[in-house]
């Protein structure tokens, strides 16, 4: 099953490698990983999307909590939450394709943020499934490059992850 782990870590050199090293050493999956400082500059927030049985995800959570630099771990997928991912896609856009590409981007509420006479760069935000669906909707051969940030997530309502 897919889980979104949200982790507060001390903003120390090496904290990322401790977390990444834990996943590789114990053979856990990382589908996506994002990390950036929070409003409290002493801490960073890491979001990891992983897959595994309930037992494995329980072990991952316990092992993460064991790392000295980890302040808090929450499995967002245990409750109501919102997740978003940002994607930048550069597509070949020449001649009659330009109109069609713009229409598809509009349908997905994407924004064209850079234009040349041969290409568009489209910015798209949404869930992982939405971004996947957008890529499916495009002609594969038209895709020149894709860049995805990985998932960021937050709890719904009053549910917050804070120290």
């Amino acid at each position: 099953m897919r889980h979104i782990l949200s982790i507060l870590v001390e903003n120390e050199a090496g904290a990322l490698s401790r977390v990444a090293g834990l996943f590789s050493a114990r053979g856990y999956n990382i589908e996506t990983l994002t990390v950036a400082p929070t409003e409290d500059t002493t801490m960073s927030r890491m979001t990891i999307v992983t897959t595994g049985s309930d037992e494995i995800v329980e072990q991952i959570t316990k092992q993460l909590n064991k790392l000295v630099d980890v302040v808090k771990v929450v499995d967002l997928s245990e409750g109501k939450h919102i997740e978003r991912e940002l994607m930048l896609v550069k597509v070949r856009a020449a001649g009659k394709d330009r109109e069609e590409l713009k229409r598809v981007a509009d349908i997905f509420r994407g924004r064209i943020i850079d234009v040349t006479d041969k290409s568009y760069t489209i910015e798209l935000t949404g869930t992982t499934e939405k971004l996947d669906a957008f890529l499916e909707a495009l002609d594969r051969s038209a895709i020149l490059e894709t860049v995805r940030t990985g998932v960021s997530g937050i709890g719904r309502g009053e549910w917050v992850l804070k120290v």
Partner: protein
Amino acid sequence: MELKPPPALAPGETLTGAEIVMRSLAAEGVEFVFGYPGGAVLHIYDAFFKQKAVKHILVRHEQGAIHAADGYARATGKCGVALVTSGPGVTNAITGIATAYMDSIPMVVLTGQVPTRAIGEDAFQECDTVGITRPAVKHNFLVRDVAQLAITIKKAFHIATTGRPGPVVVDIPKDVSNLPAPFHYPDKISLRSYSPVMKGHGGQIKKALQLLVEAKRPMIYVGGGAILGNASAEVTELVRTLGYPVTNTLMGLGSYPGTDKLFVGMLGMHGTVEANMAMQNSDVLLAVGARFDDRVIGNPAHFAAGNPTRKIIHIDVDPSSISKRVRVDIPIVGGVKEVLTEMLTQLRANPQRPDEAALAAWWAQIATWRAKDCLKYDRAAKIIKPQAVIEKLYEITKGEAYITSDVGQHQMWAAQFYKFDKPRRWINSGGLGTMGVGLPYAMGVKLAYPDAEVACVTGEASIQMCIQELSTCKQYKLPVKIVNLNNRYMGMVRQWQEFFHGNRYAESYMDALPDFVKLAEAYGHVGMRIDDPSDVEGALREAFKMKDRLVFMDFITDQTENVFPMVPGGKGMSEMILSEEL
């Protein structure tokens, strides 16, 4: 050398980083630092030279320094401390650090680093110490600012010695050890991201106790956590109050008295039939500071499927040890001493006592397993049996010695045949299984307890992995007794090759062995070679009479002897091979 506390500082006085290191170690009450100098730690060695609070023990290889600090920590329960230089000093230390990590040994390792401006430039004797040690430590630090040095050392000791203990590395660049800073060593420290839970959940303990007193076929399984957590007294009281069978893991030996009738022996790959069968067939299993590892329960699927109704209670300070390999019914996170103390309080208040008839039937069943006498061996043999040497060692030291061991067959025989009645007397590498630990472990133990008998049970393969430490033993007059069970094979490798690889003894024969008697003498010690079973006792008695000499006893033992019982890798714990089956 007499140890003296350092003088007080004048107001506004600063110290160099190296002096801060020494003051911090003194403030922690460190007696010994095991180490080896080199370029990046020269300021620290200079500071060592100028003080009298902490004693330095110079080893002959950095691996020996870490193992000796580790042995000291295992025997005393205090934090071991080691000091090594950058680059190769650190890489040589890695085996020792990983060994301590696998067995949760409290240790602080100070490492030199190239100057901060040179970090990342592939400087001479540079390595990424924090990166290279990361998977083998509880935590590590690189100190870039001398003002952070004292507090970082404080954090290191705090993390190393609390919760589930483990080694912590503090990497100190050369310039940091020479820069000045005011010195203040905090008495206490708290970290928001690190606060181990020691007190167990009262409700869980109550549920566990209820299950325990209602058990028909109970079993108590005690691991190294009970020794690390100083909980032997509580374990012993609980077991005796309930009258239940108890087993110890390799790491837990001594946490319950090995000579007691409720003790069914060590369990696991080379555990007794009665211990393994009682584990497999119990209806309620209490695990105390143990982690159901592969050398203990074998195949976890077999363990679960063979007895699906068994209820498991697991007490451990590390939540990640619970339900890792085996699903647990009642998890209790907390220090084993704290949890067992609470459990005993509740037990005293609880009028309910175990079902005597059921318990008698269970003990009768255990007696039939015991009757197999699974540790029997040929006592009339014309060639020295390794088991007989251990039995004599036990007899002559009256079971009071500190026994260190290396890794292999000799380790298993020592664990099976030396009965440990007290904790911290059995010092060996259980998790990582590091050949070479035995001699440096013995050094660390002998320094801690100079008046105690310390014997290192080893084999001719293991002992050569840290043989250079015989020189350290000479320098510091450490009269440990080395019991070398010399069968001219890497015995455990040979045993597996015999059982599972069609008797093809690939590279497991030790040809061109040194003359260990001459070798011991070359290092300034006493050597003995014993090849007749009738000389075993006399040799041991003579060796232990030489109170102030290290004696290397080279016992020429039966080459074909195997360790029984044996659970083959990947098999279930009730699927043992016994000696008569071959």
